[in-house]
């Protein structure tokens, strides 16, 4: 496997000005600007191989976008190093720029008042794509993205979802080897999200391009990415296969049961942590290895009407990952993967953090 994106101890610190509220605050900051420094990315070391489709997850302000901006060469790192396809992005070499593309969810590179096709043509010239290749490729993209007559309309007439598709098309005119997508599904409805995802996937399979996408939408990652990186407060919390996260941060399964007689709290507490209890129904988090043995007791009582055993939702798991991280700050992010505690002996740190 060939690593195409590599960062080593990458850090980025910003200075942002602080404004006090009110007129007084404005006047004060007019004469004396105060700054606060923000550590947007801390000691990030990652390696992404050719053809990988990696999801970059994190809450708002976690440092996802900053990382993408560092990778695209828009920002200079404060310390550490990075290379993409052997180039140093912040040098902004033409040869590098022709090989990658970035789509920023909230921004558009399309000319607002003109049909999207005009910006496609502009990008063709900017990236110096030969006419013969462009003509075939752009029609293929338009077809795949189901854009058709939409590319002939002024961009401002398009809906958010349609615009995002046009945006993607525009970013792919030069068939980039590296594609950075920042929140590509932000603000889109579910159907459009699905369409975009399946397009991203097929682009990845078809061209073998390496794709890194950020999202705080779990479904993006669940459907698309085998590999996930979780980042919070600029630090990498997890890097690995999606299934592994489940074992990592969700040692419990959720057992939901209904019985014919009222449930006794003390009895349920022996099984695991009660999440919800309402007369004859309850949800309990049970350590995954102990699920069967602990359920046996219930079966023998013979009052069981309904039973379901489920994995926690990925959203919940990720949420726990973040919560856990903030309570386990002293542990190095890298070592966490090997730090998997056995469910039985695991102290239930998330307990008090649940709502």
């Amino acid at each position, binding site marked *: 496997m060939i690593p195409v994106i590599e960062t080593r101890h990458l850090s980025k610190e*910003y200075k942002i000005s602080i404004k006090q509220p009110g007129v007084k605050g404005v006047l004060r900051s007019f004469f004396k600007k105060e700054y606060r420094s923000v550590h947007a990315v801390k000691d990030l070391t990652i390696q992404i191989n050719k053809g990988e489709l990696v999801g970059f997850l994190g809450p708002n302000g976690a440092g996802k*976008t900053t990382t993408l*901006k560092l990778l*695209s*060469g*828009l*920002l*200079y790192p404060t310390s550490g190093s990075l290379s993409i396809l052997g180039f140093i992005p912040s040098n*902004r070499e*033409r040869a590098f*720029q*022709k090989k*990658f*593309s*970035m789509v*920023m969810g*909230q*921004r*558009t*590179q399309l*000319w607002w*008042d*003109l049909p999207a096709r*005009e*910006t496609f*043509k*502009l*990008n*063709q*010239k*900017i*990236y*110096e794509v030969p006419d013969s290749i462009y003509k075939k490729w752009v029609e293929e993209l338009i077809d795949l993205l189901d854009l058709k007559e939409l590319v002939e309309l*002024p961009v401002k007439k398009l809906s958010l979802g349609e615009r995002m598709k046009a945006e993607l098309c525009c970013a792919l005119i030069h068939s980039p080897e590296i594609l950075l997508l*920042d929140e590509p599904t932000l603000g889109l409805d579910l159907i459009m999200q699905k369409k975009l995802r399946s397009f991203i996937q097929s682009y990845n399979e078809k061209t073998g391009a390496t794709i890194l996408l950020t999202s705080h939408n779990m479904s993006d990652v669940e459907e698309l990415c085998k590999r996930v990186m979780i980042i919070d407060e600029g630090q990498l919390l997890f890097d690995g296969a999606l299934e592994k996260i489940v074992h990592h941060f969700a040692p419990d399964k959720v057992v939901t049961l209904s019985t014919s007689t009222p449930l006794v709290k003390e009895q349920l507490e022996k099984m695991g942590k009660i999440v919800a209890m309402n007369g004859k129904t309850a949800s309990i988090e049970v350590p995954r290895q102990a699920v069967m043995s602990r359920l046996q007791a219930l079966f023998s009582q013979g009052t069981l009407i309904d039973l379901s055993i489920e994995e926690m939702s990925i959203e919940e798991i990720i949420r726990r990952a973040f919560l856990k991280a903030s309570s386990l700050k002293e542990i190095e992010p890298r070592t966490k993967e090997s730090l998997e505690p056995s469910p039985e002996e695991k102290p239930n740190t998330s307990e008090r953090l649940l709502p």
Partner: protein
Amino acid sequence: MKKYWQVFQISLQQELYYRASFIMDRARSITIVIAFYAFWTALFSDRATLLGFSKSQMLTYVLGMNILRALIFSDKTWEMLREINMGRLSYYLIRPISYIRYCLCRDMADKCMHLVSSVLEVSFALLILNIPFYVPRDFLTVLTFLTASAFAMLLYFLMTYAVGALAFWTAESMGPRFCFELFLEFAAGAFFPLDVLPRSLKTAFELLPFSSLLYFPLNIFLERLDPEALLRGFAIQIFWIGIFFYFTRAIWNKGLQAYCAEGG
């Protein structure tokens, strides 16, 4: 350089899209022409020369001003300020294109549109109002005038981009830009020839970069300059171009470094 040609074309399309605001802008300059035509015609009703101008020279100054403003004072730097403030500049920085050259092409498209329109307006005014147009006696004058106008364009470009670079540090770059424009119009002689100023003030204004933009090229066209004044004018132009060339480049390099792709 096909990419920049494409930028020019797409910018032209964009200009055509905003017909209403373009027409408004032209209406503004036509109003200025009519106002000054009426003003100077009234003043020349009982005299042959004023401030060293003959009537035909003064009216040609007014008409020439319309054309030169269209050629020199048209630009898309407002757009640039927005792009920097909104972070759209990012998309230019990650593509294999030079943002400055891109801006230049966009400006050129704007200049083309305004120039064509302005030439039509002036021809129309000449026909309708029967204005005595001052025709230079020497063909060399026209060449010198065109050279000075080209320098003026370059200088204006450098000046506006220096002011525009403020957007890298403040979200309120529109204010300074507006002040700059107001002073620029006056100091360049876009309202009145600088000859209306007291002698000492006029000399001072002539040393500023602004007078090089309109007042100086128009004076060449009207053949009001002796060789010495001509040389001095070119020296002033070239001096300021040199200054702004280094200043603008330095401030842009600094600005780009400071640019942190706002938002997100």
